[in-house]
């Protein structure tokens, strides 16, 4: 067996063991981590491998989250069924968004996606007959909720959410792994590294860039759906610009472009507030410090990253960004 | 008195060694051509002098050894480097490009500008246009004009005739010759060896990062191997 397969096996083993040793509440926190994990995987595909930046991935999560919430609350669709629909809706929107994105260079794409993430909550609030406005949509106790918020198959509700999220998370991880190792992944990186060279070798750059947008958005859609199911609630403020930015932090923490680091980034998003609380003389209740440290982590990592990547690529003896 | 001296200069790009100990001397007022095949190290030799590549070995200017060469510092010492590909500031106007040439002297002097426009009347006509909109030949003229604005003691040129119509290339070399007559030392890297050897007084031939041959341009023109390899007859 190759080291990566061993690592994946170990990872799955840890995931299986965790619920037995963790409290019920930590289990559900890790379920939320799973949702972030999936969103970061998507961001890795898009930004890490096709070189298109998105500062607005929270917006695709919102699309997924609202697809699930509206279907569950208003159309009697079972929560599990809404997940692939959320992926399809978000993925479809991603494909559509990917076309104009082709026309935008890196900086302007960053600007546009940032703008979309800032604006989306106000649009969700405006169309309140559809989205429930700022009140949001409560899913807890809805008949379409698997386990009705109590639990299922002898699992507590939290354990159920954990199993659901991480089963999908592992499946999508394997999918991303396979995808990026396939011809598709190679073509993506070829386009990223040199559009000219890729075009010369017959790769249709537009097709691959748009597809990457679609795949990435579908991942985020699943993440949003799972997030909504996890929290059993969704509202416009669930998907603020800070969520998008934190996802970016998560992707950077996970050594941008490496799906293996996604878990690390996801854990950071969830637990950084707790870690900040451990610093002496810092009152986490003030809120400011946590935000500050999120920014600081990003800044420090961006400064350290070139160094880390150089070392990593020496160790792994691989090319760009050291890993895939 | 030698203006420029390279002693055993080595340079590398990452893992690839481009210069394996280049040694050559350029006298004050000289016009030197560097010849060689692709990848022989001509361009890197120029870059070694202007400090745009990291090197080991010694580079001497006026007999003084130079430590910590940076492009800015070399510009201040009177070395003007016109890299290959007519590097101009594409979104700046022709006039601004020329003004930048005189950066090391503070503000550009009108006299100097007039001088450049005398050499290149086309540039005067197009002085308010964006540099990026000029034709290839005009851009090369601009690059050269900009270098002249620096009133350099040593002018380094990389492939000034590349991609230009023969008539324009000759025009450029004509200007170089006139500049050289007024005392500017010139080192030119040129694919068109015929043209280069006509204009230059001395020449060096580089192969795989070393100087393999050097001497009077006129002598080299008669050299059998040079003729076969670079002059094509």
């Amino acid at each position: 067996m190759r080291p990566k397969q061993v690592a994946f096996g170990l990872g799955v083993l840890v995931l299986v063991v965790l619920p037995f040793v963790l409290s019920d509440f930590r289990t559900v926190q890790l379920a939320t981590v799973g949702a972030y994990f999936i969103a970061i995987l998507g961001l890795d595909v898009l930004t890490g491998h096709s070189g298109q930046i998105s500062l607005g991935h929270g917006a695709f999560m919102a699309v997924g989250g609202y697809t699930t919430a509206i279907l569950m609350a208003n159309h009697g669709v079972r929560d599990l069924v809404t997940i692939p629909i959320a992926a399809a809706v978000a993925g479809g929107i991603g494909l559509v968004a990917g076309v104009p994105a082709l026309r935008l260079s890196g900086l302007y794409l960053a600007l546009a996606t940032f703008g979309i993430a800032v604006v989306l909550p106000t649009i969700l609030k405006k169309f309140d007959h559809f989205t429930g406005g700022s009140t949001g949509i409560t899913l807890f106790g809805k008949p379409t909720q698997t386990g009705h918020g109590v639990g299922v198959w002898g699992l507590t509700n939290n354990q159920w959410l954990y199993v659901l999220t991480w089963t999908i998370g592992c499946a999508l991880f394997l999918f991303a792994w396979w995808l990026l190792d396939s011809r598709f992944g190679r073509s993506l990186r070829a386009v990223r590294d040199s559009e000219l060279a890729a075009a010369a070798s017959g790769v249709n750059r537009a097709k691959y860039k748009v597809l990457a947008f679609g795949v990435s958005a579908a991942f985020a859609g699943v993440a949003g759906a799972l997030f909504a199911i996890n929290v059993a609630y969704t509202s416009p403020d669930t998907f603020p610009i800070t969520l998008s930015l934190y996802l970016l932090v998560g992707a950077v923490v996970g050594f941008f472009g490496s799906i293996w680091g996604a878990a690390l980034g996801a854990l950071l998003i969830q637990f950084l507030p707790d870690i900040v609380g451990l610093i002496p003389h810092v009152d986490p209740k003030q809120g400011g410090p946590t935000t500050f440290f999120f920014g600081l982590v990003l800044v420090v990592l961006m400064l350290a990253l070139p160094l880390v990547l150089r070392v990593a690529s020496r160790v792994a003896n691989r090319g760009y960004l050291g890993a895939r | 008195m030698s203006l420029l001296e390279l002693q055993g200069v080595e340079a590398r790009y990452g893992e690839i060694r481009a210069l394996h100990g280049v040694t050559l001397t350029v006298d004050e007022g000289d016009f030197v051509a560097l010849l060689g095949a692709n990848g022989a190290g001509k361009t890197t030799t120029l870059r070694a002098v202007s400090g745009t590549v990291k090197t080991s070995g010694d580079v001497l200017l006026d007999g003084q050894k130079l430590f910590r060469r940076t492009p800015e510092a070399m510009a201040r010492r009177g070395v003007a480097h016109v890299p290959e590909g007519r590097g101009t500031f594409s979104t700046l106007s022709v006039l601004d490009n020329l003004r930048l040439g005189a950066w090391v002297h503070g503000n550009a002097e009108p006299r100097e500008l007039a001088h450049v426009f005398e050499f290149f009347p086309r540039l005067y006509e197009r002085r308010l246009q964006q540099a990026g909109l000029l034709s290839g030949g005009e851009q090369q003229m601009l690059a050269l004009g900009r270098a002249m604005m620096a009133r350099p003691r040593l002018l380094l040129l990389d492939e000034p005739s590349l991609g230009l119509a023969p008539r324009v290339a000759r025009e450029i070399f004509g200007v170089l010759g006139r500049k050289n007559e007024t005392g500017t030392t010139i080192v030119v890297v040129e694919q068109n060896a015929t043209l280069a050897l006509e204009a230059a007084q001395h020449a060096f031939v580089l192969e795989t990062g070393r100087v393999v041959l050097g001497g009077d341009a006129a002598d080299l023109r008669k050299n059998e191997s040079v003729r076969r390899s670079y002059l094509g007859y």
Partner: protein
Amino acid sequence: MTNFIQQIVSGLASGGIYGLLALALVLIHRSTGVINFAQGEMATLSAFVCWTLISHGWAFWPAFGATLVLSFAGGLALETTIIRPIQGGPLLGIVILTIGLLIAFNGLDTWIWGGAAKQFHGPFSTAPIRVGGVAFSKQDLGVIAVAFVVLALVGVLFTRTRLGLGLRAAAVNPDEARLVGVRVPSMLALGWGLAAVLGAIAGVMAAPSLFLEPNMMQTVLLYAFAAAVLGGMDSPLGAVVGGLLLGVLLNLVGTYVHWIGGELRLATALAVILAVLLVRPSGLFGRAAARRV
């Protein structure tokens, strides 16, 4: 009719602030080639510094002057310590870094000064002046005047001074700029310092009418992006005119298109950004990047 004119006048007043921040964005983009997402938060931080000096008994103008000096130093320090190490790497790295600064500065403001809104006494009176049925204040006129004065100064700096020439050269082609003797790292640092100063002016001008709190410039940043893009990302004149146009546009659309109302102002600004980027990326005043291959 009075309301129509009033909305235009108010729009110009808000637009002046958008334009000022847009000017800072344009300056940094022009001199370093980067879009600085932290610009709004840097402006807020400067405004807090100024507020702190004033609340310690300083008069406005000395406090303002000191804030500009501190902001300039801060911008320089930021470039030399944080931006420079990854300068020359991929541009997106620097963009992500500015996002980190955005988050960090916002947290820092909240940490130090708390989240509650603070009153900020500006240099201009907010007492109303009425002409016909239309009202405005010295504050509004002051902001617009400051925007144009700053614009003129930036214009002179860029087109009439040696420093401006160096700044532009360093941005367009850093390698080439070094060859002619321009100290490129110093130019980039100066660019950041100057942008921080412009941001500080925007922040201090905005604070009296928006009320000072850590998120003060967050929405303004998006408006400033829209203004800068509308004017053409590289044109200082475009930034200010774009800001004023946007301010008026948002007010008129918000007032007369009931479907949009006050709730979709941000969305309107985003629509402007997307439309300009996709249809005419050079904006109203920007020159198409000339490039011949």
